[in-house]
């Protein structure tokens, strides 16, 4: 069990300019990963320097708006996007539809993938039947399926959600299967000795035991699907952040493209943070078997 340093006190500790008291007591720091602090001051500095460089370059007129927009033009565009939307669709709707597609795809993938993975971990027959499919589909990048899915479903909502469903399905299946494989046999033995039936063992022992790995799968699936949805929207869509930047490109609106890229990054990061938070909240026993 790793010892967590005492809660940081003072601004300089929070900024990472000073080590907290606990770390200060250590004589060996190089090589001790827990002795490396956040270095938050330098993170802030990096962001400030980048923004300042952008601002100065804009002020000096060094930027050609075709390649990279000036900071004030970008801000003006951002305000315009919020107030007027993009191509008759509100800015929030572009973001909302992309997020909705990801959530729908990941959840559908989990709903089918988790039971499938559990079955594959528990039954030779299920493993035998689905192993070729899962192992074959696993290395295929979801983007490679886009042409086929367009042929099947056209470019409507079903097509995108189905693509994301496929992207998350195999991740979730494999996560659930490895969750079953990680169950310690003593726990299962203990449950049988306490009189539990197979069904009870599935729901009260195997499933909770597999939850940490299922959740890691969910987190991975979220990340992969976020990347996939943007790419899919680049190829074929009239709504969504990906389609927004693709259409903006056609109109040489570099500022909208840049804003779109920022938004994609921010949302991807938010999803990751949200999932980590949920993980700590829902699975506090993770890694403590």
């Amino acid at each position, binding site marked *: 069990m790793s010892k967590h340093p005492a809660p940081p006190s003072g601004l300089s500790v929070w900024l990472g300019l000073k080590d907290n008291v606990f770390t200060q007591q250590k004589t060996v720091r190089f090589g001790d990963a827990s002795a490396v602090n956040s270095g938050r001051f330098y993170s802030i500095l990096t962001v400030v320097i980048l923004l300042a460089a952008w601002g100065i370059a804009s002020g000096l007129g060094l930027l050609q708006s075709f390649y990279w927009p000036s900071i004030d033009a970008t801000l003006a565009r951002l305000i315009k996007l919020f107030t007027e939307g993009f191509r008759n669709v509100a800015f929030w709707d572009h973001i909302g539809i992309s997020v909705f597609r990801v959530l729908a795809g990941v959840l559908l993938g989990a709903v089918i993938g988790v039971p499938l993975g559990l079955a594959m971990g528990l039954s030779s027959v299920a493993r035998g039947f689905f192993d070729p499919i899962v192992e074959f589909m696993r290395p295929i990048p979801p983007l490679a399926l886009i042409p086929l899915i367009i042929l099947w479903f056209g470019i409507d909502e079903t097509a995108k959600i189905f693509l994301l469903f496929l992207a998350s399905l195999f991740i979730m299946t494999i996560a659930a299967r490895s969750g079953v494989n990680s169950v310690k046999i*003593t726990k299962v033995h203990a449950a*049988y*000795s*306490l009189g539990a039936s197979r069904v009870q063992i599935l729901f009260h022992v195997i499933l909770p035991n597999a939850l940490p790995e299922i959740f890691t799968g969910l987190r991975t699936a979220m990340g992969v699907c976020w990347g996939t949805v943007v790419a899919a929207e680049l190829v074929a869509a009239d709504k969504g952040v990906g389609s927004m930047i693709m259409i903006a490109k056609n109109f040489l609106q570099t500022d909208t493209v840049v804003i779109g890229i920022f938004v994609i990054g921010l949302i991807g990061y938010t999803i990751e943070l949200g999932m980590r938070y949920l993980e700590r909240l829902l699975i506090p026993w993770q890694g403590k078997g």
Partner: protein
Amino acid sequence: MSGIVADKISMVFTLPSGEQVHALNDVNLNVKDGEIISVLGPSGCGKTTLLNIIAGFLKPTSGKIVRENIEVTGPGPDRGMVFQQGALFEWMTVEKNIAFGPKMAGRPAADTKRKVDELLQIVGLQDFGKKPVYQLSGGMQQRVALARCLANDPEVILMDEPLGALDALTREKMQGLVLKLWKETRKTIILITHSVEEALFLGERLIVMAPRPGRILREYELPFADRGLVESPRQIKASPEFVETREEVLSLIWGMEEEIMGSDKEPEPA
């Protein structure tokens, strides 16, 4: 009511490579109802295999386990199990771990609650019922494991080195607890251990096993478990009879270990 009988148990493991390992050879054991016996032996003597067969996790190559004239064919709530460690459900609180057996059997929640509270008292964890088990120390976790097993009211309790992972002091305290539980419940208990002292202190009878193939080498009738109900553990462990038996068993085990591992002595110069 009856204890449990191991009738001519032999176990030959066939490894995937085809190699055969004789884990147990013709083991006969008759544990009387309410008896506490300890099983001791060097590593590889098949004592855990024997326990797993009694628990019903393994099918013996030949022979059978019989309880109340019925042959054991699989695990069941009549034979409770306490493992060395890692068998608690870390996603549940202490209370829920203890209530697991009764809950699976569909007993009324109120009865289970009463039983859990009573057991928490007995094992001295009354203030820890709502805690997740992973926040407890090793010794406390083993108390939970004991309570969880007792909550199911099994006829026989099988213990597979339940105190093996604990530090020496906690271990001695827990031995007292096991003895107390045996006295109060008079369950039939089979205890596997690596510690000679523990085996002597807790067993009314001691089974010493030998390896290759695993078999019963000797049996001792012991007075110490009964005396442990009145005398203090330190007093018993320091008594001449205890020390004498301990040395005798130790040299028996050491003899076997040396046969397996080779002697510790420096080889003679050539």
